[in-house]
Each structure stands twice: as structure tokens, then as C-alpha cells.
């Protein structure tokens, strides 16, 4: 989230699309409700009428996998009707930038496409530079190559008529949504978007979100109270685990994982540190080398020296051009090239796309360690449906972990708040905190490597001193993440003492090895004043918009709304004085309100003259502007509608490419996929219910929750049920090219057939929480037996929200 949960109450319009907040983020609805009580309009767009829809002022349906068409139509509507916030757009976005001659778009392809590589040469999409190396701009917005005009041209095709024939949304409903949302382009109005996996789990996942970012930038909704782009995280600590480098392509703090072709820290820094020639661009990532060195110091302690590049050589490296995501791991495992596997706090036999492939892949392992609260479909995969235990050689070890409430530590919620939690009851039986397990694992590895082995340096040099009284100490880890001064250092008038915690924040981190920091975005979270995340202050900030700055701690530097300088006009005065976030106190020469995005003054003095000390608002982008044109993604600088890998129509109605030309496609015999095949005529999608959580491991064995949602179900329209002779409550079989699942039919008015390109298309939906271990009948299986292994080219998240199925009576 750029904003945070409480801030939802400040919105004039809330769009819930690609998420089902009432069911899957029930507490968020406290704030949605609050906004509605204040007069906000709630819009919900979803293939199915959900519990969220039941509370919406405007509901519109759409076929799964067509969000870009829907949002592209909204962009066109905003442009056609000039609903954008022009001053904001000019001051804070790249709308006026001139795009270089290399950029073009034809027939669904951007320039630079290489069919063999299924990829683009992104360098063709660069901006035109002036002689100082700064992007050229046309503030009159007349240049046909300026971003705004290219944007207009790109979305010219997205008429409501065309959009409706792609999405199946009635035109009147499209217009209702566009009008209500577009009305927030006024300086004193704000709209927010709440999205989740309904947007991310597609071959165009990142571009779905990009579309919305562009809309938010056009309407001036970024950085303001009640605005922003807000991802609703699916676990209490998904934000934290992402921040701390859970994904293969980033180290903690969003530092790119080095690749094998980058031989030295110097080259790494050269490659990954953006340079801006515009003195007024803060270009915050220019500080990256400080964060990398501080991280290395935190990993390797005294062993990391300037001479050995702070241990850069000990970091694991990626092979160039190779991805190591979930899909790729299980593809490699399926191909027999992975021998051992730690399945830690997860249940891949149920939770990943194409579970049959995943389960087969695990049968090719020598060993697997299952670290979890309970045994699950993963640990017991060898005795699951269709498996012959006698033939499976994989040795499985179970390490029981304790549950979150039995241990101390922090979680970071969707709103980037790091919140400390205390230990409740003691861990049950011989279960232990994950931290204990991983720490001991590290110590044992060190012992083993002490006697030699392949490349022992990385393990032996690891600073691994988080024990207190022989036990994992979460405070030591939290302090390590915050970072220490490692030598006495004088900066300005202040001398920082070796051994003290770095505070107030990452602006102090150094590239010379004098600081350590486990994650620069968390610098300032645990200081000599104490554990900031354990704070529970109840007082609001002076702007009274629900920031509660002394409750827990938010990254970065306790900023509650990021890009908040964009909530002000160029003189630093709020566009909406009634819900201001920050404002410039010209006399005191400081910002007041939320922690601003950097201390610099606003770009203009009170008399309107430019202030050279001022900086542009979007400090994390190289140029300092919000990116309406985004040349950094693998699939193009403007989002374009492509059909999912499996879809119900032969032809993309918007362009000549049926599916994303750069989405990964896997080729094993377990990766079958079918499009427009009469055997799988219906669109299928997956979702969650309030009553179960994730793959269901923590909820399916819970009788009170199982009572509420006892069985795998499939929701379908009355029309489809009538056509297939299916009665409500009857068991049916749902099948895709990859697997089949028995479900109880819920025949409902809440699903309606879509009219797509003149044809009637049906969609059905299934929850993904089930698996054969619980309930005890063993009859309720995972929806992911049906989903395909393909995904987004940027993130490689699987496309589990749109695929093709059949439904038959049992």
C-alpha cells in the first residue's frame, strides 16, 4: 500500500477490483464502511457478485482476465472528457516527456520484440534527451510524441463498445464506473483502489496494476489522503517477507539480486545505480551502494572489508536470463534437476498453480523438509491421491514450527506498519519458532562446512550471532535489521558512536563499511530510544487524517502516506486543505504533518519563483516523476489487453496478439493448455472465502470453520446450471486440461453469463482452500489441480485467476 488501512476512510470513491475485501480482508471493511458513512461511493468490479458487491453502490461484472480492457476504457474516458487533474499531471507525472523515436506499437506488439526470446529490447522505449542528458519535455502537451499524446493514441481503440465486447460488462455499467471514478480528478477529491490477487495472478498481472497507477496519476490521486494504489496483502506479514527479500530477484530492501555476469561490487553498483542529470531529481536510488554495503556488513560482519568488496563474492548469483520463481523451481524439480527441498511455512501441493505437476515434481526429490504447524498435503504428498508410496523414494522430514502467537517478533502489514507482537502461550510440544529452527540450521551448516565442502566461505563468514541464552533472540535480529554504527563517525556536528543503532534513518547509512543495516527501508525502526514497532500511541497527527504516527512504525522513516509531496501544489500548499497530508511551513522552512518524502523545500517559493533547492515529488523514480509512461517493464510501457493463456475466444478483439507475447510458457507433459477447445468451454477462476485461509492448513482442521465452509464448491449461474442440468447442492466434476476436482454446485444469481464478441460465455468460480488431508473424507481437493503454469513475465506469479474448464454432473 502506498497509503494504509485507516486511510481508506478518507476516500471519496473506493474501487474494489481484483480483490474481495469484505470476504478476504474483513477488517478493512471497517474503514470502507467508515468512508461510506462519510458519503463515499463504493464501486466493486468482479466477475461474480460477492459479499463485497452486496455493500457496493455500483457493481459491475467483468470476465476474468480482461481488467486492462476495462481500465483502458477508463483511461480513454478520462482523457476524452478531460477529467484529469492537469496541474498535477504536469507537475508530478511524465505526461509532458517526449518519447524517443524508437518507441512504436503495432498489432499488439511494441517495438523491439524478439519472437525467439519472447522478449523486448526495452532500450527502444527510452525518452528523448536534451544535451544535458535530461528527458525533453513539452509543457504545452502539444508535441505528438509527448507521453500524454501517445497515451491518447494508444487508448483510442478502447471504446466502451469494444471494451464491453471484451469484458462482457454492459456499456451502461462501464460508464457508471468511469463517471464515478473519473469525478475524483478534482483537487479536493480522492479515490483509492483496493486490489489483491484478482489483479496479480495473470499473465498481465503487473500491467493490470500499472493501468490503475496511470489512472491514479492522471486524476492526481497519488500521495493524497484517501488515494494511492493499495495492495491488500493475503497474509499478515506478506509485506514484511517481500521487504526482506523473500523473492528470488531481490535482496532485502529491494536491492537486485546479483547475477553471475556481474563480477564485482563495483560493476554491480555501476549497473544498478540510476543516474540522473537533472539536479532537481532526488533520484533516491543513487544511494543504493550505501544500502548494499550496509547489508553486506550486516551479513558478514568483520569479515566484510573494503578489500574483499565487503563479501560481494559470497552472495549467491543468478544465471543471466534465468528465473528462479515458484513456477521455475517446480519446473526444474519436475525435470528431475533438484534433489532437496525445504518447504517452509507453505503447502505447495495445494497452493501453487498446476498442483498435479507440483506433486509429481516432489516425487523426484531425494529429500524434503516440511517445516509447518501440522502435516499437510505437501509433507504427505507421497501417500496422496494417485500416488504409489512404494514407488516414491523421497525422504520427508517434518519439523514442527510453533504458531505466530506463540513467539515474539514483528509483522509488517499491508500499510507498511511494522508491529511488534509478544509471545502468548508457550509453543506446544516440541514445536519451535521458525527463527530458532533457521538459526540452528545455520549453526549446524557452519559446523559441517568447517571441515570443508564446496565454497564454504559464504557459510563460514556469515555473521550469525542472534542467540541469547542459547535461543534465537528476535530483538537482536530486529536491531540488526535497523543497523549499527560500526566505527565512531563524525558527520557535521554529530559524532555517532560505534555500537549504537543507526537513527533516525537510512539517510545516515554509509558506503564505506562504517554502518551495517539488514534492510535499509527498516532503518529507524529499532533505535537507542527503543523498539519503535512496539509503540502503541493513540494520538493522531495534527492533520487529523488517521496517521497515528506513534502507533507502531511504518517504513520508510515512519512515513504513513508515500509520495505525499504530490498532495501539495508546487508551493507546498495542500490541494485539499480539508484532508491535508503535508504542507510547507515557509517561515519555519519545514514540512509539517506526515513525514515528507525528503526534507527539500517544494519546487516553488511562495511567490511562485522556482526554488533551486526543491526536488520533484516522485523521489524513487530516476527522473522524479510519476510514470504514466513506464519503460521499465518486460511487457511494454503502456498496458495492453491480451487474453489469458487459456481463453474462450480465438482472437483478441483488441489487437493481433492473442496472449501476452512475453509471458512464460512451460513445455513439460504436465503443462497442457487449451484455448477455444470445446472440451473446456467455460472460464474458470479461483478465489478465497472468509472462512478459510490460504491453502487451508490452519482452517480446515478447525471444526468451527469447517462447519461454515465444509466442502469444495463451484459457483455458477442459473443459466449454465439449467443448460447442464445441474441442480443446486449437487456434486459435480470441474475439469481442466491439467486435472479435475469434485465440487458441490452453488447455483446462484450472483454469476451471470457474459456476452463476449457476440457469443455467450459462462464463467464459474472455485475456492482454493481445500486439499485431501482435511476434511477427513479426503474428497475435497485443491482448485490448483486445475490452474495452469504460466504467469506474469515480470514477477512470474502464476495465472490462477483465468483459465478454461468444463463442468459435468457426477
Amino acid at each position, binding site marked *: 500500500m502506498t497509503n494504509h488501512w485507516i486511510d481508506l476512510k478518507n476516500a471519496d470513491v473506493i474501487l474494489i477490483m481484483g480483490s474481495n475485501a*469484505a*470476504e478476504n480482508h*474483513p*477488517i478493512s*471493511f*471497517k474503514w470502507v*464502511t467508515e468512508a461510506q*458513512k462519510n458519503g463515499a461511493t463504493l464501486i466493486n468490479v468482479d466477475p461474480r*457478485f460477492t*459479499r*463485497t*458487491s*452486496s*455493500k457496493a453502490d455500483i457493481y459491475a461484472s467483468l470476465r476474468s482476465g480482461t481488467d486492462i480492457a476495462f481500465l483502458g476504457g477508463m483511461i480513454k474516458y478520462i482523457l476524452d472528457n478531460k477529467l484529469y487533474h492537469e496541474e498535477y499531471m504536469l507537475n508530478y507525472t511524465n505526461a509532458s516527456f517526449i518519447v524517443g523515436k524508437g518507441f512504436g506499437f503495432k498489432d499488439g506488439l511494441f517495438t523491439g520484440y524478439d519472437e525467439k526470446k519472447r522478449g523486448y529490447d526495452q532500450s527502444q522505449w527510452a525518452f528523448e534527451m536534451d544535451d544535458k542528458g535530461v528527458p525533453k519535455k513539452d509543457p504545452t502537451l502539444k508535441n505528438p510524441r509527448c507521453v500524454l499524446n501517445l497515451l491518447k493514441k494508444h487508448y483510442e481503440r478502447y471504446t466502451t463498445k469494444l471494451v464491453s465486447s471484451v469484458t462482457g460488462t454492459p456499456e451502461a455499467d462501464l460508464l457508471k464506473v468511469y463517471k464515478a471514478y473519473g469525478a475524483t480528478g478534482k483537487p479536493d477529491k480522492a479515490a483509492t483502489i483496493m486490489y489483491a490477487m484478482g489483479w496479480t495472478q495473470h499473465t498481465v498481472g503487473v500491467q493490470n496494476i500499472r493501468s490503475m497507477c496511470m489512472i491514479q496519476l492522471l486524476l492526481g490521486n497519488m500521495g493524497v489522503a484517501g488515494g494511492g494504489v493499495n495492495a491488500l496483502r493475503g497474509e499478515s506479514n506478506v509485506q514484511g517477507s517481500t521487504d526482506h527479500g523473500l523473492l528470488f530477484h531481490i535482496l532485502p530492501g529491494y536491492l537486485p539480486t546479483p547475477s553471475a555476469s556481474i563480477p564485482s561490487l563495483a560493476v554491480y553498483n555501476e549497473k544498478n545505480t540510476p543516474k540522473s542529470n537533472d539536479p532537481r531529481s532526488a533520484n533516491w536510488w543513487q544511494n543504493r551502494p550505501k544500502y548494499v554495503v550496509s547489508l553486506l556488513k550486516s551479513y558478514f560482519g568483520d569479515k566484510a572489508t573494503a578489500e574483499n568488496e565487503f563479501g560481494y563474492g559470497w552472495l549467491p548469483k543468478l544465471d543471466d536470463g534465468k528465473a528462479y520463481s515458484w513456477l521455475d523451481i517446480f519446473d526444474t524439480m519436475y525435470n528431475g534437476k533438484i534433489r532437496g527441498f525445504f518447504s517452509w511455512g507453505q503447502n505447495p501441493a495445494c497452493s501453487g498453480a498446476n498442483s498435479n505437476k507440483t506433486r509429481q515434481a516432489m516425487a523426484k526429490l531425494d529429500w524434503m523438509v516440511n517445516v509447518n504447524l501440522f502435516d499437510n498435503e505437501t509433507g504427505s504428498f507421497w501417500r496422496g491421491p494417485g500416488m504409489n508410496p512404494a514407488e516414491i523414494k523421497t525422504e520427508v522430514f517434518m519439523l514442527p514450527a510453533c504458531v505466530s502467537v506463540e513467539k515474539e517478533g514483528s509483522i509488517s502489514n499491508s500499510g507498511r506498519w511494522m508491529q511488534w507482537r509478544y509471545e502468548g502461550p508457550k509453543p506446544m510440544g516440541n514445536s519451535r519458532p521458525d527463527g530458532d529452527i533457521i538459526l540452528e540450521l545455520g549453526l549446524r551448516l557452519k559446523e559441517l562446512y568447517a571441515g570443508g565442502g564446496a565454497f564454504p566461505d559464504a557459510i563460514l563468514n556469515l555473521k550469525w550471532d542472534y542467540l541469547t541464552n542459547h535461543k534465537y533472540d528476535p530483538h537482536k535480529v530486529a536491531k540488526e535489521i535497523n543497523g549499527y554504527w560500526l566505527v565512531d563517525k563524525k558527520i557535521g556536528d554529530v559524532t555517532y558512536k560505534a555500537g549504537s543503532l543507526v537513527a533516525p534513518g537510512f539517510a545516515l547509512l554509509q558506503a564505506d563499511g562504517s554502518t551495517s543495516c539488514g534492510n535499509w527501508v527498516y532503518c529507524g525502526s529499532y533505535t537507542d530510544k527503543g523498539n519503535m514497532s512496539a509503540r502503541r500511541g493513540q494520538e493522531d497527527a495534527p492533520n487529523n487524517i488517521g496517521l497515528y504516527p506513534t502507533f507502531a512504525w511504518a517504513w520508510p522513516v515512519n512515513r504513513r502516506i508515500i509520495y505525499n509531496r504530490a498532495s501539495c501544489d508546487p508551493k507546498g500548499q495542500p490541494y485539499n486543505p480539508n484532508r491535508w497530508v503535508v504542507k510547507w511551513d515557509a517561515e519555519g522552512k519545514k514540512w509539517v504533518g506526515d513525514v515528507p518524502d525528503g526534507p527539500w523545500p517544494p519546487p516553488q517559493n511562495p511567490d511562485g519563483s522556482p526554488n533551486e533547492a526543491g526536488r520533484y515529488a516522485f523521489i524513487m523514480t530516476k527522473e522524479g516523476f510519476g510514470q504514466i509512461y513506464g519503460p521499465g517493464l518486460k511487457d511494454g510501457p503502456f498496458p495492453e489487453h491480451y487474453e489469458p493463456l487459456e481463453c474462450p475466444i480465438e482472437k483478441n478483439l483488441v489487437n493481433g496478439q492473442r496472449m501476452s507475447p512475453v509471458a512464460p510458457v512451460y513445455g513439460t507433459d504436465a503443462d497442457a493448455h487449451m484455448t477455444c477447445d470445446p472440451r473446456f468451454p467455460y472460464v474458470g477462476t479461483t478465489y478465497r*472465502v*472468509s*472462512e478459510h485461509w490460504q491453502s487451508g492448513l490452519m482452517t480446515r482442521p478447525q*471444526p*468451527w*470453520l*469447517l*462447519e*461454515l*465452509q*465444509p*466442502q469444495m*464448491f463451484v459457483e455458477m449461474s442459473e443459466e449454465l446450471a439449467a443448460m447442464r442440468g445441474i*441442480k*443446486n*447442492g*449437487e456434486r459435480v466434476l470441474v475439469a481442466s486440461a491439467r486435472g479435475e476436482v469434485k465440487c*458441490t*454446485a*452453488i*447455483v*446462484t*444469481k*450472483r454469476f451471470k453469463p457474459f456476452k463476449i464478441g457476440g457469443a455467450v460465455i459462462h464463467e464459474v468460480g472455485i475456492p482454493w482452500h481445500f486439499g485431501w488431508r482435511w476434511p477427513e473424507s479426503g474428497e475435497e481437493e485443491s482448485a490448483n489441480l486445475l490452474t495452469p503454469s504460466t504467469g506474469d513475465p515480470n514477477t512470474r506469479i502464476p495465472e490462477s485467476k483465468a483459465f478454461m474448464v468444463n463442468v459435468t454432473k457426477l
Partner: protein
Amino acid sequence: MAKAFFIDTTLCTACRACQVACKQWHDLPAEETKNLGTHQNPPDLSFNTYKLVRMNEKVIDGQLRWLFFPEQCRHCIEAPCLEALGDPGAIYQDPDTGAILYTRQTRQADADAIIESCPYHIPRKGPDGSVSKCDMCNDRVHNGLLPACVQACPTGAMNFGERDAMLEMANKRLEVVKAKYPQALLLDPDTVSVIYLVAFPPENYHEFAIASREPSGVTRHMALRKMVRPFAAALSHLG
């Protein structure tokens, strides 16, 4: 001072936290359910289910509505079940909170008469013949806590407090809600301690959302006598 609930169904998202919280506080066993083609589960109140969120799909004026009704005992101010039985050892009213409370002694009473007397079809018989229902979490309330269901509710649909305050809250909210839903009304507010606000005529939510219209048998007659006034009031709300 008598307590009351105000349940604003226009805010209810059917998250069913209330339903689970009720089971948890009372340590009631889960029922073995099946999916019967709806998300509502268990299908009905039972001896072990005091709170049930009813879910109904209705097309009203051409628009699809999914209506949620978190149902429980109304703790009638003059409770027909209490009067029907006339045995304070088995059913009594807590003078402090207004809760209508059943004891184990309902086992010796005429369970069917108790059940029959309730105009909201609430009490349910257990295997041993005793009768159970929502107890207002009277133990919690006496200890300064909110009822478990109210405590768990994330949206503010469930509210609990002094009767006057709840009535005031209900009437204020009714005025607001009416702007969006002109047919909105409070259900039997004068005679019960659990006051529902609904956006559409009550029969869309549940057959027994308001005091039942067609009682039969002597005890039901007695109940009806008590209920005639609010029943008429509800009808007049319906216009």
C-alpha cells in the same frame, strides 16, 4: 438498566465472525455440515448454534441484493417463552441486563411449548430434551465485556449497550439509511432487546425476521396477544 443490541444489517458483510465467536465463547461443538448449495451454514439455528448469519439472494426492483441477517434470540422485553412456561427455575429474566435466560431445568419442562411460544422461532431442543438459545453472553456483560458476537464484528453492524442509547443509535441510523433505502425500517423495536435495521421488507431476510404472523395453538395465541401491537406497527412501516 436493561441492555439492548442494535444490529444494522446494512453494514453486515456476512463475515460470520459473530457466528464463530458465539460458538467459541460458549464452547459449542461444530455441527457436521455439508454444502447445500449456499454459503449459509449450518442451515438453521440449532441446540448448538445460537447465532446464525442468514444469507438470501433477492432481486428487488430489478436489482440483485444479497441480504444478510445475523440472527439470534431477541430477548423480548416481555418474553412469550418465559410467560408460556411460567417456571422461573427454567426460564427467567435477568433484572440487570434484561437477558432472557434458560437453565438446564428446561429439560423437565415442556420443550415443545417453549419452542412453540416463540414468535421468532428461536429456541431449539437438544438430544436430552433441554432447550437452548442465545444467552446475551450474560456472563460477559456482568463482567463489563461486550457480548462475544459484538466484540468480534469488524464493521460496526453489531452494537450493544444501554437500551436508550441503542434506540437512539438505531433511529439516527434509520434516518440516514432511508436516504438510500426508502423502505428501511427497525424490526419490532418496542418489544425486543435485539433491534434490527433492515433495508428492505423483512420477509426478504427471513421468515421470522419479525414476530410471526400465523401462530397456532394456545401458547402461540398468548404470544400473539403480546405481539399484536408491534406486528401492526411493523405492518404500517411496510406501508
